[in-house]
């Protein structure tokens, strides 16, 4: 069965849909967690520490976090590899372009590939910036996420990278969520409007929720 799924274009799209939905679920949780920054350094740092102790005493310190990380890495890799292979195939399937060009499909649809690449690069920067601190501006201190976030969003490039990536994530979800529903066969004519509405609401809420943090730092609400 795994072979059938991976070898088929329809199957590979299923892999993309499922891995995409896993990442989407994570993003919702991540966005809600981020908003805790508006309740002060203590609450935010306490929340960050709690993420490492979730599931105790059943789970050891950081076990749950690592399980989530492994699931996410698998999802990202599966999503990216499928996207790469399907895109290569799509480009090969349409070797010559039309002379008479017309603007086609919605902006969100046309930017899925570049948007995905931007998001992939963003994730690398984001982890090096706020998880490992490798490329962090100012002194990165593990266990002090509040200060680290403020440091990042006190630089112009930190804000620029983040804002571009969050707009990309919104566009990606707008087309991606609805597409995942079609790929998994749950879309229908009667459900179409509802699915599109959910996709738009998710895209807007996530983008707005994520952008609230850099805007908060820039306006001095968070400092």
């Amino acid at each position, binding site marked *: *069965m795994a072979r*059938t*799924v991976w*070898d*088929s*274009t*329809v*199957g*590979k*799209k*299923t892999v993309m849909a499922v891995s995409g939905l896993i990442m989407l679920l994570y993003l919702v949780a991540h966005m809600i967690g981020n908003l805790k920054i508006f309740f002060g350094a203590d609450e935010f740092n306490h929340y960050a520490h709690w993420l490492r102790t979730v599931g105790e005493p059943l789970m050891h310190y950081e076990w749950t976090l690592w399980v989530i990380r492994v699931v996410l890495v698998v999802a990202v890799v599966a999503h990216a590899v499928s996207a790469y292979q*399907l895109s290569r*195939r*799509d*480009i*090969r*399937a*349409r*070797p*010559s*372009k*039309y*002379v*008479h*060009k*017309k603007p*086609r*499909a919605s902006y969100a*649809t*046309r930017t*899925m590939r570049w948007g995905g690449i931007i998001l992939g690069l963003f994730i690398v920067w984001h982890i090096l910036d706020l998880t490992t601190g490798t490329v962090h501006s100012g002194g990165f201190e593990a266990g002090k996420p509040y200060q680290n976030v403020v440091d990042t969003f006190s630089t112009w490039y930190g804000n620029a990278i983040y804002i571009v990536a969050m707009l990309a994530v919104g566009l990606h979800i707008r*087309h991606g969520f*609805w*597409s995942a*529903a*079609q*790929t*998994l*066969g*749950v*879309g*229908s*004519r009667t459900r*179409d409007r509802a699915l599109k509405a959910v996709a738009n609401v998710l895209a807007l809420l996530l983008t707005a929720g994520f952008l609230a943090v850099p805007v908060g730092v820039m306006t001095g609400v968070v400092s």
Partner: protein
Amino acid sequence: MKLTLRVWRQKNADAEGAMSTYQVDGISPDMSFLEMLDTLNEELILKGEEPVAFDHDCREGICGACSLVINGDAHGPERTTTCQLHMRSFKDGDTIDIEPWRAAAFPVIKDLVVDRSAFDRIIQAGGYISVPTGSAPDAHATPVPKPDADFAFEHAECIGCGACVAACPNGAAMLFTSAKVNHLNVLPQGAPERETRVLDMVAQMDEEGFGGCTLAGECATACPKGIPLTSITGMNKEWLRATRKAAKK
């Protein structure tokens, strides 16, 4: 009407093609697009030039033989087949670009004619039902619920012209394949081959070198028969169901 036509000319499958410009005069708005091309070809023949090769057959919008990407739209600006497109959809003095279907799985044979036999092979893979031959069964021998009959008929309207592939940015044949799968899979007559049909047709579709679906929706917009985009959703559902069932065996 006086028109400027920019037409894709290509000697054969191996030759390099290019757009050639022609002027046609005395076109009636009541002519079909193909009659307009006939007029052009008559002039070309009189001048001793090679006429433009294009596919056509019934000229009634039911056979799926005609093609042409007109000003970037498969079958032109109206939601119909090229043979049912009339010159009243254009203005006097217009410049019209005419190109063949573009897809790796639809190689150009000559000028505006492409090889669409990939579709035939997808049909051969599962676009049929197995029935005993002999006299026709009674019409009411196999009851079909009305909603199912309507659903099947909506998808059975596909004439296999390939506009969906031509319009798709990925050269995908998902809408064509899904129309066939949905048409037969919903009917009791199609039930015995329900799982193998979708698996084999999708496998053949991939084999032919068509692209994958990114749900851009261009296919459904171009389809002269109005096959809905949700047809693809329906096929995905059937494919997942068949894959699960095959795994259990």
